[in-house]
């Protein structure tokens, strides 16, 4: 892609600790992560706990200061941007959280919640702000009379719609959605994913869509980045990733997802043991402690992310694994 909207290069984030984790160990949340998100493109970020997916998203919005690496948004270096310009850029970068209830003030009406960002950005008159709030409400398929209501009067799925409306009211060109459907029931999850897809298409939004669930990112994503313990294991166009996953971790993740078919063979746990503590990540390839294919080389050296097909890269030393 010639001119990516978001460009992440060598992103690293270590969290220091003040006693809580003891022994002065650094938590290696994100280690040398690079990826792009093109204009209007949806990139899925998938990983289990400790994979660093949320930290990456927070760094991309500069809600967390990275330890190292570069993040460029629309050509600007986000890490060196002065406050004023960062505030202006913030309008274009919006965030949808997992549990909208935690992020929607219980004391504000929907009208207040939806116009707050516009007020902070100094956009429009009172009437214009209300107008845009109403448009956002319509876009997420909530009735106009929602404006006078409070968050607790909405169901979980409706609250997530409110969270999306709040992000969209500023007409961003980039949306980070962090586990936006994980707290929702299955019947509601698909509603929200369909809604996001429709909005993304209509508004030409670029998105970083984060989930622990491979099945959830599949529908929305153009490309998927698979993370494990703060590192990229595999990147591929969605169809390639689901039809021909290359990395043992991606394969294990897919094999572990239970299949809603009583006739299917039982799922097998391909990875043994537990996810290691990010405060003490394994040497070499971080997966080697759990990987059935690990060799001595995997313990010694970190495998680089290598392209195996156009747009498809994996960080694994083994090229001799069965297809």
């Amino acid at each position, binding site marked *: 892609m010639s001119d990516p909207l978001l460009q992440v290069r060598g992103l690293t984030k270590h969290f220091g600790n003040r006693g809580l984790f003891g022994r002065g160990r650094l938590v290696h949340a994100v280690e040398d992560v690079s990826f792009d998100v093109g204009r209007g493109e949806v990139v899925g970020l998938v990983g289990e706990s400790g994979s660093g997916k949320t930290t990456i998203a927070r760094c991309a919005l500069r809600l967390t200061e990275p330890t190292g690496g570069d993040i460029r948004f629309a050509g600007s270096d986000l890490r060196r941007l002065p406050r004023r310009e960062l505030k202006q850029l913030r309008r274009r970068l919006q965030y949808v959280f997992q549990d909208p209830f935690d992020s929607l003030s219980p004391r504000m009406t929907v009208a207040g919640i939806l116009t707050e960002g516009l007020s902070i950005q100094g956009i429009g008159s009172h009437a214009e702000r209300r107008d845009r709030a109403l448009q956002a409400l319509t876009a997420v398929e909530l009735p106009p009379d929602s404006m006078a209501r409070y968050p607790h009067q909405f169901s979980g799925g409706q609250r997530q719609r409110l969270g999306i409306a709040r992000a969209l009211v500023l007409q961003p060109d980039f949306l980070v959605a962090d586990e936006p459907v994980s707290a929702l029931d299955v*019947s509601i*999850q698909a509603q929200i994913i369909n809604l996001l897809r429709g909005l993304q298409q209509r508004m030409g939004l670029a998105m970083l869509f984060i989930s622990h669930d491979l099945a959830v990112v*599949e529908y929305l994503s153009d490309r998927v980045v698979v993370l494990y313990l703060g590192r990229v294991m595999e990147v591929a166009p969605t169809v390639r990733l*689901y039809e021909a996953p290359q990395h043992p971790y991606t394969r294990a993740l897919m094999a*572990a997802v239970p*299949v809603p078919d*009583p006739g299917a063979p*039982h799922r097998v746990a391909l990875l043994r043991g*537990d*996810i290691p503590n990010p405060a003490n990540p394994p040497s070499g390839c971080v997966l080697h402690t759990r990987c059935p294919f690990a060799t001595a080389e995997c313990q010694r050296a970190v495998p680089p992310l290598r392209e195996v097909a156009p747009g498809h890269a994996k960080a694994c030393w083994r090229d001799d694994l069965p297809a």
Partner: protein
Amino acid sequence: MAALLDIAGLRTEFATRAGPILPVNDVSLSVQVGETLALVGESGCGKSVTALSILRLLPRRVGRIAAGSIRLQGIDGDLLTLPEDRMRHVRGGAIGMIFQEPATCLNPLLTVGEQVAEPLRIHRNLSHAAAAREAVATLASVGLPGEDHQAGRYPHELSGGMRQRAMIAVALACHPRLLIADEPTTALDVTIQAQIMELLRALQRELGMAMLFITHNFALVADLAHRMAVMYAGRIVEHGPVAEVFSRPRHPYTHGLLACMPRLGQAHRLRAGNQALPTIAGSVPRLGALPAGCSFAPRCTLATDACRHDTPPLTTVSADHAVRCLRWAEL
């Protein structure tokens, strides 16, 4: 097969400021010896309250059991009216239980070995030394081997998956005939979930123990259970053998949920064909504001006036398959 657990007409009532609600409404279920029955439904459907009602673990100020009877093979009398001291021996004795979040069940001040040993002393009158020996063996059987000195560890020293194994060990210590497992893998990562599911399947096979497996995840039902009961707004809307319900769901809700279940590798094909993901319109009604008639009617594409008038009775479809829908034959 004989019924190990037989629940008839269970009704649990919660007092709320707006008046009483029924999180469990006229629920009848049976679990046969050695079988796994999955109780499945979305949040608020009453599946967990059903489990807590069976165990009589609902705090009195929250709710009370308003009607029904629960019989467990080998226990004289109704569990619901059993004196509390006898009920205490049923919990952790004949019935073991595991929950979603082990951290809330395990005592942070005791090692996991001590916690597995405790029910052995209480329910099986083992000496301290004998209970400790057996605790190590039980922990090993759930994948926490003795050579790693797992018995001497405290819950906070274990990962989420290990804690879940420790809780399973506590539940299994006294060889229960029934294990009630309430969303035991929901808080776990998917690669760890696969390990715990393998463990539960193996333990059930080896111990011949029956299981009431409570989940929102139909895929786990397919993976583990023999029979299933689907709950919606406090009622069982369909129950039957897993293979039959999956291949021929008779309730529009079951049908809709099965269609919504994400299937890995299918969504990108739908998208390529410009198709939306299947959904169920609307959302689960609040128990305090249930519609008249069938609670699912407002979301149901098949609903008629009759559906909005009376609660449909549980109708037999085939030998062991029943559905609470007036229009099941048309589905």
